[in-house]
């Protein structure tokens, strides 16, 4: 990899702050690498070369002048192309939005990373309107899994995960409504974070199903994930779901011991139908932490069903006008799912929202006895590009809507999850580290400890 950041993004930023490395050099290396290698993976839908160079020049000038620069000074990053970037059209993976006006300003999280000194380099591929788990985009092509280009990257934030896995960028932003950060993190073997619902601002992010939409990010280590998370936190009145609570910095706690932390291992739904390598990954992580207590959440299948119904209805409603006036400009697979969602009776959606409250309260009782829950992220490793189904509990089920079987029940009630790659040979396998609401810092601590214990690691890309 030419964009080699062996000591993480904080060390890189330290070199920039100390003028041992210029932001301009980092940006040129990053742009050259993207130019040379992204055609293999199709992570990017736009590269902002001029803007990135300009931001780097300004940053280097600040360093030379002795002005303060942020904790992520010079760190290149990219965003799923549903984040607003000032002056750019926000595609959200669609053809339809190509006709939209360019964004007037950066999305809140883009602005926060820039204010921390990070440099925006490009926009990244995704499933159309985030409705899918594969990033096989009919308009912009599939993003290929860096560990096997004949396989999917997962989705919907597939470009964001693959860019980190390929070493093209050390940090990317994504969104997660039902698993769209965690599934591609698992398929591509990187760390991803879906914080508590309401923790990170969604202002300037094209919605999918607003009552379930989260924002988050990808990185190669738990420490990098924590560093970016601390830069991203903070209330935002522009997002009605964003909680008015102060940031909870995670980096100061990252090395704290786990003495007394009660860790459960998911049972029931999260094991049924999982492939042997996925279960081996879960057992590896549990053994490393000495976690033997198994925990089954109540009514998980129903929680997944309710999330599925809410997503279908809210997504359909969001796109109703375009479904009427220009249905043939959608990816047919997305369009037909949305149209079906438009036909759901209101009673189902209302019942699903009420069940959400019930399920939240029941799971909160489970978390009275544990602090952390370990669960697999996906049923299987990355399917092949174009593969239509995979095996689950003896049935063949469609890939596109079903890769989130293990992620969907957790985001349904907004629980924070660190998605982490199991250290293993072969295709990546992911672990979900779940904590109670607002306890993201603990999830990051556990992920960091598991890295130290050798159970987690973002796999290096084999020479391609």
């Amino acid at each position, binding site marked *: 990899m030419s964009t080699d950041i062996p000591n993480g993004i904080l060390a890189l930023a330290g070199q920039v702050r100390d003028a041992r490395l210029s932001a301009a050099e980092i940006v040129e290396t990053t742009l050259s690498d993207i130019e040379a290698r992204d055609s293999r993976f199709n992570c990017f839908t736009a590269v902002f070369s001029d803007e990135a160079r300009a931001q780097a020049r300004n940053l280097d000038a600040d360093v030379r002048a002795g002005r303060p620069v942020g904790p992520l000074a010079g760190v290149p990053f990219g965003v799923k192309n549903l984040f607003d970037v000032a002056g750019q059209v926000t595609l959200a993976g669609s053809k339809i939005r190509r006709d939209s006006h360019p964004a007037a300003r950066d999305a809140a999280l883009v602005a926060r990373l820039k204010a921390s000194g990070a440099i925006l380099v490009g926009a990244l591929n995704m499933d159309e309107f985030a409705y899918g788990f594969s990033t096989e985009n009919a308009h912009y092509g599939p993003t290929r899994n860096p560990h096997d280009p004949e396989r999917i990257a997962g989705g919907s934030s597939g470009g964001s995960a693959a860019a980190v896995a390929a070493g093209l960028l050390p940090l990317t932003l994504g969104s997660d409504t039902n698993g769209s950060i965690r599934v591609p993190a698992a398929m591509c073997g990187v760390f991803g974070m879906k914080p508590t619902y309401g923790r990170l601002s969604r202002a300037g992010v094209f919605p999918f199903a607003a009552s379930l939409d989260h924002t988050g990010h990808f990185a190669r280590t738990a420490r990098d994930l924590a560093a970016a998370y601390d830069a991203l936190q903070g209330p935002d009145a522009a997002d*009605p779901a964003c909680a008015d609570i102060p940031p909870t910095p995670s980096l100061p706690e990252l090395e704290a011991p786990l003495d007394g932390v009660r860790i459960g291992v998911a049972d029931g739904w999260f094991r049924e139908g999982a492939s042997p390598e996925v279960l081996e990954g879960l057992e590896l992580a549990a053994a490393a932490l000495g976690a033997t207590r198994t925990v089954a959440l109540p009514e998980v299948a129903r929680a997944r*069903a309710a999330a599925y119904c809410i997503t279908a209805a809210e997504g359909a409603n969001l796109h109703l006008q375009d479904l*009427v006036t220009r249905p*043939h400009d959608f990816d047919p*697979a997305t369009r037909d799912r949305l149209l*079906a969602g438009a036909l759901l009776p209101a009673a189902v959606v209302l019942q699903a929202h009420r069940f959400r409250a019930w399920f939240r309260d029941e799971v909160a009782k489970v978390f009275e006895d544990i602090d952390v829950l370990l669960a697999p992220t996906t049923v299987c490793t990355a399917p092949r590009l174009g593969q239509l189904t995979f095996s689950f509990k003896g049935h063949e089920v469609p890939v596109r809507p079903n890769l989130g079987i293990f992620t969907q029940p957790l985001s349904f009630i*907004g629980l924070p999850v660190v998605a982490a790659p199991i250290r293993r040979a072969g295709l990546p396998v992911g672990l979900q580290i779940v904590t109670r609401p607002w306890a993201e810092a603990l999830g990051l601590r556990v992920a960091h400890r598991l890295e130290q214990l050798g159970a987690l690691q973002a796999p290096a890309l084999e020479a391609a």
Partner: protein
Amino acid sequence: MHPSPDSETDEAAAAYARAAAAYQRLPIPEQCWPGVITNLLTLREHVAMVMDFPLGPEVQADSVFQP
């Protein structure tokens, strides 16, 4: 999750879909119907799970979900 192969229930779903689309004046191009009905059959499995669970009147949804 597993659409029923039963042609009678499939026809019922298709009839519902066409009636629901007409009721809300949602025009669906003819070539979209097979995909729409396939997705509606998938949704029907999830709908049944949601509607089969009794909830008391004390269980209320949040206007903005509070985790």
